[in-house]
């Protein structure tokens, strides 16, 4: 028994040390962002704010990033909703209405999830310029929806595959067709999956950088591009930058804190085979 207590204590020490490593960046971000400018010094970087908490950094950071946070929101919300609807339809068809070659179609769609977007970037830019959606948010929404088809389809397909076919057979006897079964049986059952996909797409698009930096011009930059730009300029004080970084990360952090269960499911769906 004493041996057990000993090993458990050892485990806790290791876990707490590791937890400290994982929390270090967040701790530094919080610490610095609440300090006034005269306390931001290399030497005292790890010291606690001595003269109370200062929120003016957040106001300054928000002033820097407000238009970009707005851009990100305008992009992410329609993107998450539309791509979940599309994914739900695709997932339903590929899980419950298999035709010859439907597995091949699914695999070909799935491959799109893995490609490095650098390999399609030149045609994409030229295409977006040609259809006059280059440089602005609607074009970015379209691109995120299309390249989101693989993952959203995968998550919904795996979810629907787990719903018993007997349920659909019962509906068929009542005379419902393909669309009726979706509307009256599958769709009402899909709420958990919609939560997973909407949260996943929201997080992905909010954090995405490559499409954002290539496809938008400065006045339409989403928050990741603006943050990277802010960090690269030498004019910004560290406490303001840390406050801005925290603001930029806040939406996805909040989603993780309050809806972590669904976030985790999306994570696993992207990794495990159906």
């Amino acid at each position, binding site marked *: 028994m004493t041996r057990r207590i000993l090993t458990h204590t050892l*485990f*806790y020490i290791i*876990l707490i040390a*590791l*937890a400290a490593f*994982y929390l270090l*960046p967040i701790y*530094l971000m919080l610490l610095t962002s609440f300090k006034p400018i005269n306390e931001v010094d*290399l030497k005292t*970087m790890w010291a606690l704010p001595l003269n109370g908490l200062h929120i003016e950094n957040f106001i300054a950071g928000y002033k820097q990033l407000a238009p970009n946070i707005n851009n990100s929101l305008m992009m992410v919300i329609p993107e998450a909703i539309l791509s979940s609807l599309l994914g739900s*339809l*695709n997932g339903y068809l590929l899980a419950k*209405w298999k035709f010859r070659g439907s*597995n091949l*179609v699914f695999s070909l*769609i799935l*491959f*799109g999830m*893995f*490609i*490095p977007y*650098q*390999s*399609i*970037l*030149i*045609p994409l830019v030229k295409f977006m310029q040609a259809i*006059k959606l280059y440089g*602005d948010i*609607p074009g970015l929404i379209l*691109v995120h929806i*299309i*390249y989101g088809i693989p993952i959203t*389809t995968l998550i919904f397909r795996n979810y629907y595959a787990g719903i018993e076919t007997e349920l659909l057979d019962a509906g068929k006897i009542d005379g419902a*067709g*393909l*669309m009726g079964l979706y509307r009256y049986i599958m769709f009402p059952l899909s709420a958990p999956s919609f939560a997973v996909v909407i949260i996943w797409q929201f997080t992905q698009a*909010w*954090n995405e*950088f490559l499409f954002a930096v*290539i496809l938008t011009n400065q006045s339409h930059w989403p928050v990741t591009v603006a*943050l*990277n730009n802010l*960090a690269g300029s030498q004019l910004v004080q*560290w406490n303001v*930058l*840390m406050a801005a*970084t925290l603001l*930029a*990360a806040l939406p*996805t*952090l909040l989603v*993780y*804190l309050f809806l*972590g269960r669904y*976030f985790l499911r999306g994570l*696993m769906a992207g*990794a*495990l085979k*159906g």
Partner: protein
Amino acid sequence: MFRKFTLRVPRLLLALALILLGAVCIFTIGKLQLIITGRNLTSIGLLAGGLIFYTGIILVISMFENETVLSIALLLPSMVAVAIFVYGFIGWSVRVSLSKWKGLNPDFTWVGLKQYYSLFHDNPRFMIDIRNTGMFTVGFILGCLILGLGLAILLDQRLKGEALFRGIFLFPMSISFIASGVVWGWLMNPATGNRITGINLIFQTLGLKSLISLWHSTPMPWGMAFTVIPAVWQLSGFTMALYMGGMRSISDDLREAARVDGASEFQIYRYIIFPLLQPVTLSAVIILGHMSLKIFDLIVALGNKAISLDVPGIYMWTTTFDGTNYAQGAAIGVLMLVSVAILVVPYLIQNMRTEIQL
């Protein structure tokens, strides 16, 4: 194929209305352009019109009661989108990579594999990229697997506060690579002497002077090795979650049986759990590997495009959009795709085969 047909008058009327509306939308928007709040949304308008039109067609098809045809018709928009934006664009990129397009005006003059040849033969920067990607990939995958498995084993011991620890290890996954690169760039500040700061300052205060390092500013090639730290920080929790999922699916009876047979906890892991976790390791290697082969934003935020920390993803970006060398940029993009495809395609094929057997 269309033997059965049930005429449903309301549905037919709705279908005709939608087809007509879609056609009118396409025609007027095509003629007049659609401008909303200063944005030219003509193509979005045309797309919406097209989808309205197509919904009408779907309604007509649905009256034939052939579910296979209806299913394919409903999948068609997504299939077309993926066919164009994934496969069509890959083909287009390959074509650009076989040309000598340099400068803003497209030039599709065929030069064969010249771009690839020059990347591998007289391009020191690309050699740095390959070495950096290799170093990053090995460090990142090993770091995530070892730390992820270790964390999963620790949390497998049914300790109190498991959920809290799990949450702490997983949260970095929700932050963008850009934000984490900004913060880690500060933590891994290379300044020494009286400008010492960040983690180095902690080391100095603790008297661990030998650990003070230049981090990712270490001269080539080893600076790249330090970029692994923030990447592992972000994704080791994810690897942990994968392993925990794998361990959950191993039944307790199996462990109990081994215990009855006198196996120690260590032997249970060594002979029962680790072998059963091999498929999880394979998926983890594939997921993490494809991420590291296309790593981009983290390195941008950390290294600010320094050559010593260059990777193909950044090289493709600068050579194409700053240097307007489209042909070479396309070649780099295609090579990135090939490296990812070598890793992923066998896995996808395997996946498809096992599904068909079921």
